């Protein structure tokens, strides 16, 4: 695959290194000359030293034949514009943007950026895993956000503790995909009785989320 990486900071550097190691062809666009030289010294003649948001430098980097553009600078606005220019001018089939402000993820998706990666959200996810939360944890979105994969952790006050799966009044379309008990994954059966500490992996939709949370975790 031919990948154009916009931004040669730490994320861009290690991404490029891993992609090269995996046998992909990669070009990095980095506007800071000393940073660009560092990468070229380490990884070879694969750096275009210029502004990766500008069409002509994207052209120089061969964006016209790129399979993927990954915009991973530290600035959301630069990542957005780099991806939009790549899409608009070069019809790059797949665009990936690093998003620092997790609230921008939804907007980026709406603006037809194919994938967003938010380190902030990832770290948030890890932290939320560690401490009890009274909300659904978002694990993934499918179908442009229509289908949500969420996790619910059952603490002592959860209304469904002690009840069997078949007793739950899940809305049509909502599914319990898995129950994680301790470190074991249990396939939910109708007679599975829910316990304190269980983590339920659920498939739901954005508009039924609030209802699902009330059902499982309480108001």
């Amino acid at each position, binding site marked *: 695959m031919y990948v154009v990486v916009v931004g040669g900071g730490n994320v861009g550097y290690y991404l490029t290194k891993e992609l090269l190691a995996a046998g992909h*062809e990669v*070009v990095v666009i980095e506007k800071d000359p000393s940073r660009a030289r560092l990468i070229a010294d380490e990884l*070879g*003649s*694969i750096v*275009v030293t210029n502004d990766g948001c500008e069409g002509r430098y994207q*052209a*120089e*980097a*061969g964006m*016209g*034949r790129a399979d993927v553009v990954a915009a991973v600078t530290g600035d959301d606005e630069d990542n957005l514009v780099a991806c939009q220019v790549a899409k608009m001018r070069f019809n790059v089939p797949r665009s990936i943007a690093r998003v620092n402000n997790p609230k921008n993820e939804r907007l980026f998706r709406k603006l037809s950026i194919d994938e967003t990666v938010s380190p902030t959200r990832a770290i948030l996810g890890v932290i939320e895993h560690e401490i009890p939360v009274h909300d659904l944890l978002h694990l993934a979105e499918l179908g442009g956000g229509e289908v949500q994969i969420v996790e619910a952790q059952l603490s002592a006050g959860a209304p469904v503790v002690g009840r069997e799966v078949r007793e739950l009044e899940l809305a049509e379309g909502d599914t319990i995909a898995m129950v994680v008990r301790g470190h074991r994954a249990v396939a939910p059966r109708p007679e599975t009785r829910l316990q304190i500490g269980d983590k339920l992996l659920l498939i739901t939709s954005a508009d039924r989320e609030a209802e699902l949370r009330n059902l499982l975790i309480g108001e």
Partner: protein
Amino acid sequence: MIFRRAEKRPPLLTFERILIPMNGSEADDSSLRLAAVLIASQHAPRAVAIHLLHVIEVPFDRQLDDEEPRAIAFADEILGRAEDFLTGLEIAAETEVVQARAAGPAIVDDAVEQRADVIIMGLRYKKRFGGSWDAGRTVPYVMRNSTAPVWCLRVATEDLAQTP
């Protein structure tokens, strides 16, 4: 008498493998002539291996192995001419064409691969827009990164440097 003494003296510099990167400019001529002089000074001129290299720089908008007939023809032409020149002096040479994103790193890599004792490269006299001298990208890169010694010959110019 003096002639015989000189013949017995070992050459001041000894070379077994010389790498000459060529870009098709008039600077190539200087490096070829210097190489010929050096070879003539060796005890066993025929034992010296000359490697003529031309690097085709492929822009990122094309795949690295994507061959452009015009660039290949140009490479063949300049390397062929250099080979002919050396053959006229009874010097044998190998030629090589390499496709790379940038000539500098390709030359440095090739020098390692060929185990070159010296890289001899010519440099045209050029000024940047605004008047300051411009050594280009390739020669400074090779100077900075090559483990082998690099001899760079700047060709004559009538255009004098203005900068103090």
